[in-house]
């Protein structure tokens, strides 16, 4: 297969996977799902590292560094905040009302 067709094939299959995989989500999880997906596209960090690693002029490196910072914030922050949100969904032992016998 020629290169662009390969990429197109992978793209098309990924579209189906992306749609099918989340098609059963309950609305309670919409927000964490959005946040988690948001973190996943933070993998653009990889691209930022690649272009910065290949940059030659100082300006290019500077722009690249900005891109790396932004992408890292997206990725790391995204996963951490999603995790924090999801902690809240976890079933925990019931909390005792303060001094029920007083």
């Amino acid at each position, binding site marked *: 297969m020629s290169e662009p067709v390969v990429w197109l094939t992978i793209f098309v299959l990924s579209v189906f996977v992306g749609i099918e995989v989340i098609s059963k989500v309950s609305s309670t999880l919409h927000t964490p799902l959005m946040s988690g997906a948001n*973190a996943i596209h933070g993998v653009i960090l990889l691209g930022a590292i690649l272009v910065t690693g290949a940059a030659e002029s100082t300006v290019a490196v500077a722009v690249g560094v900005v891109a790396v910072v932004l992408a890292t914030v997206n990725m790391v922050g995204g996963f951490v905040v999603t995790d924090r949100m999801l902690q809240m969904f976890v079933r925990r032992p019931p909390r005792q009302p303060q001094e029920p016998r007083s």
Partner: protein
Amino acid sequence: MTPTWAQLAYLVAAVCFILALKGLSSPKTARRGNLVGAFGAVLACAIVFFAEDLDNLMPILIAIVVGTVVGVVGARRVQMTQMPQLVALFNGVGGGAAALVALLELDELSRFAEAHIARFDMAATGFTILVGAVSFSGSLVTFAKLQELMTTRPVVFPGLPVAFGAALLASVGLSATLVFEPNLSWGIVLAFVGLALGVLLVLPVGGADVPIVISLLNAFTGLAVAAGGYVLGNAVLLVAGTLVGASGTLLTKLMATAMGRSLFNTLFGALKGGSTLGAGEASDRPVRSAGPQDIAILLGYANRVIVVPGYGLAVAQAQHTLRELVDVLGEKGIVVDYAIHPVAGRMPGHMNVLLAEAQVPYEQLKEMDEINGDFKHADVVLVVGANDVVNPAAKTTPGAPIYGMPILNADEAGQVIFMKRSMRPGFAGIENELLFDPKTTLLFGDAKDTMSKLLTAVKAL
């Protein structure tokens, strides 16, 4: 050429992302899913250092450390009520990064390989720049709206549709130019047009619709990353970006449906004038209202109370006081539960997060389906800053904007108490007959304020 082991490792990372999305779609596996996604991301970014020949290692590593610190601190410090704007912000910076990456790649391509650049590569580069910029500026505006740095009402000015159309045309033209004349300057202009486009897209969206737009911009960033992956010839970016783009688009639709809105209306409803939701005016039909003391008595002598928290609770940040009130009632032997509507709050599922943060025991949080049969046995329903989610019009009035949306059956309870500031309608902008029902009592005032008064009154009983 990337070595084969690295390509395989990238594939593993891509699979992690698929499993992450799959996990995130079900409550039991959500947290694990998120961790699997994080693992995939770290894996992908670690590989690149070993597999590729990189210059500028020092600046890159420092940038990563800085980004990590900012990200972790931001994510840990933020209050749960500010979650939506944080997600918007993170999404925006991701889009910005994608646009910058594409600009740098454009610079590279246009300088070294002018003759060999495939048209399709340039189209993809232009797409990444444009969409990344739209996502960046759009997300910043949503952030400003949610953080109340600007008005949360839809912003519409006379020339807006024209300006939007012009920016849209310009971006198409510039992209085409870029394809035939790869040149950094055009790319930078395209980025600025994208920024303008993002702002113009989000300005007319009202505050309550913003979560839908964040989800849409999230899908945009995904697509930008996917196109970036194509340009860089990196499969994991392509797969990850496409996954987010596709699932994000579907999620946006699901969200809009859950709120009884269409996506088109969300984005362009304000432009058409007409039904800017939430703009409904207060009615002046008679209602019964009461003070905190009276309500305290109602609550104090009930056996079964159900609390319906809503958007207003989140806005007023009254969740901690509410939890205290419920605890006090519990001490009196009253059975109290929270009825959580899936779209109560500022974002879907937001109410669970808010109440969990206020340390409400998970056992008291009841999903709509679980508790809807209990309302008829409840003596008192306490509706705090909620409105649409208990509006019987969803069942009885075909044609109402919320018609067909499942609601909490608060109208079946013995007594209904509404805590709100005025007679203004909720998000959907329609009147709520339940407010005028003989068994309803209103307690006017900001939820946080009246809630603490109510708490004092109940304690004093």
